[in-house]
């Protein structure tokens, strides 16, 4: 039941968005034209496709983020259970972190964290 409020929140926010869209669809006048349908770009006429090829740097950052995201997911239960665990658990987590810090050091030294 703890999650009942999460569900309610999700339902209400979905309803608000859907309601807003539906309401504006219902009451707004529909008079489309070529200029009205073009994307609004701060008053500038849009040029070319909206599609741009991303820099590979985004991918590398995303990858590093993901790895440390997973690490955080492992840290969390350790932190929650910390008081009941002994010194060995601390040591084990130290080894785990050491290996990943090695990965971070690698990425840093090799310049994967620099924006090119």
């Amino acid at each position: 039941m703890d999650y009942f409020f999460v569900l309610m929140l999700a339902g209400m926010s979905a309803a608000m968005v859907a309601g807003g869209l539906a309401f504006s669809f219902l009451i707004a006048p529909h008079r489309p034209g070529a200029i009205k349908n073009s994307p609004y770009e701060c008053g500038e006429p849009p040029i070319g496709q909206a599609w741009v090829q991303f820099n590979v740097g985004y991918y590398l950052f995303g990858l590093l983020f993901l790895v440390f995201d997973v690490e955080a997911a492992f840290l969390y239960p350790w932190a929650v259970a910390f008081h009941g665990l002994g010194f060995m658990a601390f040591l084990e987590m130290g080894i785990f972190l050491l290996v990943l810090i090695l990965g971070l050091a690698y990425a840093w030294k090799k310049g994967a964290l620099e924006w090119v």
Partner: protein
Amino acid sequence: MIASASYTVIFYLLAALAVLLSLAVVNAWKLLRAAIALMGVLSMSAGLYVMLDASFLAGVQVLVYVGGIVVLIVFAVMLTRSAELLQDNPAPLRKILGAIASLAFLAATVGVFRSSPFLLSAEKAPLRDNTTLIGEKLLDYGAGGYVLPFEIISLLLLIAIIGGIVVARKTEPQGQPFTTGGDEAGEAEFRPPFTQEEHEDELELVEK
């Protein structure tokens, strides 16, 4: 009564949404739409985890899958030249065979799952505060612990970092000397026939 009924309703709602969104993932012509639908599928399964009282798993699902992997997929999509999938139409026979295989697999798994009693964790103990329990199990080096896979995972993550950087980097790092194709001075006198053909093959592939 109402609680259990609403539980059932929500479960089927989440499950149906997950199935529909999965269909959207495989049927979308635009990769980005498929990625967003995938995000939906993963969120729905997070919801299912919540209903199973696996709140930590649900959190990890949202944190890692929805927030990390899908973002990475979107970046990978944006790295491509175009988000439109090539309009390749597989032969009808292949489509039919694929459909038959998928349906047979579905029938087999559903049939098996309906006929077999699975051990449900509810029969054992109420897993209320399971995050603490996971933490204890994960770092327990005794008989019931999982410290070995835990440490192996750190190695796996390290390899993921290194491998990802090696494969995905665009720029050649300074001073990697062995990236020439043998076209430096003094290497020109010996060019075996195979490399040239191979090189031409490559050029053809690039042109395609």
